[in-house]
């Protein structure tokens, strides 16, 4: 087990990077504590797979250093870093039995047969594969095969870190719940550092203790799922996390008070604005917008039924405002106003939360 430290990492796939866009990783430092579950979350092209490859040693960063437990491994080969990886598509040997597949990473490391047997049975029990250990892997369903891949990633007890690269992408939603829960449970049981790369917020937020949100080769915020939801420190995080994402509305600030299209709006932090220009916006999540007697006059543009709640799109002065209304709550017909929860409404300057 190891604490992972990335210091001043920059990476470019080009020979002579010059412009900012030439860098896949612009500049990045990260301390991943021992035994925690981390998620790297961000849109395609944000640099998360590059990061994963840098940690696993498949890629040497253009600049910066990587430490495992204080030991510089920047130059170390992937094999010597002692990492287990689980990929998007199952990597298993079809002709082998489930047992032999799970045993492979151990036998490869010359673990004694009694130990192999013990570990394989432990992991098979956790993943509910115990009943099929003698079966050939070729006959299994996609999720069955991916379970084996997960098992192979988890079976060694001596790895520094276990890395998952979008491991549930190919799995049906019904089974995703099950595998995600399993993975979380396994993390609690074995307590090893895990890094999980995904573009799916649900996977990241449910799996990880801490989520690293990336965009355009940079870390935008590192936080617990609750922090990212309740206090996004950038409008990108507010937009990217949450479905639908945070409402981001243009505003002005005078005398420590924000006004959105002429209507005064209370927020947690408008008073902290120093009057130093910049693009000013208010951010409030659809969960924290409600219908009220007075407030911001709106018209309802669209109502989508999502089952347990409805996504209501309201509009004020041409600005769309999304809100989530639970299935039993009525939607008023006319003379409609909305208000934002003041303690969940924040001021952003050029995208960053004003502090």
């Amino acid at each position, binding site marked *: 087990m190891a604490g992972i430290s990335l210091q001043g990492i920059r990476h470019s796939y080009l020979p002579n990077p010059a412009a900012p866009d030439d860098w896949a990783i612009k500049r990045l430092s990260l301390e991943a504590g021992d035994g925690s579950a981390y998620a790297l979350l961000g849109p395609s092209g944000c640099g998360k797979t590059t990061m994963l490859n840098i940690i696993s040693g498949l890629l040497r960063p253009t600049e910066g250093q990587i430490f495992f437990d204080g030991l510089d491994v920047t130059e170390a080969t992937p094999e010597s870093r002692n990492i287990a990886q689980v990929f998007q598509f199952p990597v298993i040997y079809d002709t082998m039995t489930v047992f032999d597949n799970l045993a492979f990473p151990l036998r490869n490391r010359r673990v004694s047969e009694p130990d192999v047997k013990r570990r394989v049975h432990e992991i098979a029990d956790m993943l509910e594969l115990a009943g099929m250990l003698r079966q050939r892997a070729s006959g299994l369903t996609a999720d069955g095969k991916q379970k084996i891949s997960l098992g192979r990633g988890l079976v060694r007890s001596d790895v520094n870190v276990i890395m998952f690269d979008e491991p549930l992408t190919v799995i049906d939603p019904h089974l995703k719940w099950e595998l995600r829960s399993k993975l979380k449970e396994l993390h609690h049981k074995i307590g090893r550092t895990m890094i999980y790369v995904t573009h799916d917020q649900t996977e990241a937020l449910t799996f990880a203790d801490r989520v690293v949100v990336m965009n355009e080769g940079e870390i935008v915020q590192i936080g617990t*799922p609750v922090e990212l*939801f309740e206090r996004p420190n950038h409008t990108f995080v507010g937009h990217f996390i949450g479905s639908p994402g945070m409402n981001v509305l243009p505003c002005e600030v005078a005398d420590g008070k924000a006004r959105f299209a002429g209507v005064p709006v209370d927020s947690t932090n408008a008073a902290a604005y120093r009057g130093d220009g910049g693009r000013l916006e208010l951010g409030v999540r659809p969960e924290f917008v409600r219908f009220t007697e007075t407030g911001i006059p709106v018209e309802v543009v669209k109502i989508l039924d999502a089952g347990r709640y409805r996504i209501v799109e309201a509009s004020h002065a041409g600005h769309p405002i999304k809100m989530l209304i639970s299935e039993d709550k009525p939607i008023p017909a006319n003379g409609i106003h909305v208000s934002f929860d003041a303690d969940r409404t924040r001021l952003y300057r050029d995208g960053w939360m004003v502090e």
Partner: protein
Amino acid sequence: MALELRNVTKRIGADVHIHQTDLVLQEGSFNTLLGPTLSGKTSLMQLMAGLDRPSSGEIWSRGRNVTDVPVQKRNVSMVYQQFINYPNFTVYENIASPLRVAGLARPEIDRRVAAASELLRLTPMLGRRPNELSGGQQQRTAIARALVKDAELVLLDEPLANLDYKLREELRDELPRFFADRDCIVVYATTEPTEALLFGGNTATVFEGRVTQFGSTSDVYRRPADLVSARVFSDPPINTAPVVKTGDKLVIGQAIALPTGRFRSELADGEYTIGLRPHHVTPQPQGNGATVDGRVLVAELSGSESVVHFDLDGHTWVSQSAGIHPFAVGDVARLHVEVDKSFFFDADGLLVAGGP
């Protein structure tokens, strides 16, 4: 004027891929085929498109029997999960290709390509070739090509499955709008219940080669005809357990008794399977409820909601609620069950009570 599947079946050797199916899709409608992988969604689409012939039954389009008409002679466009583009063509040429084949005038081609590429955020990429695009952009190119054609039938087979979820969210919002003022029939296959709900329109639940229910999406969700349809249309999975109703009590297993709520008179005494969606089983009291205690198996917090998997007399149940409600694995959780929101299914799995 509609697309009709009349008594259609599809067998390959001894395997039944599609059991006898009747389905009528109206012109101008958006229809979602919702079901797990390998449930028969793609097989149904191939039959609709004419890519495949039914083993028995007929397919009618706009009042004409088209069972033997091959796909080339039908006005159909299709998008698959695995995107397919012409590698030597630019994005513009890829999107324009069906229009060129159809012999449209250049200004009309330009106009339609512009509209589709605007919707799919491809305008800056029109001059590039597919290998210079990300996976998401390639898939959007394939979708754009299917959209420009003005086909009578547009078949979208999990087209957003490989895309980033934020992009998926945007396209989910925009796709129905793109078809809103057209009279084509859209059929969209997905494994995700939320996607079906957000599209609105109609939904067919598909399971093991059968269309188990078809109707307006909201009706199918709120009044599932049977247990299978309810299961297909629930994520997280719908909670179920055998239950015995006697007078004003509902008894699960040996020890769990719930009040009958609105079902006291609505439901005859007897044995049923109760179904409750996860958001009607919550840590905080709601509606006309009762409480159950269950050992926590897994607790997931997503930042904005809590999902707790717990053991209820040997059945794994799931609770889903807004806000953060931390539970430790192994603890006994007390959960509020909104009995009035239950569904009751008989021994054949058919709905006997529940729903609005």
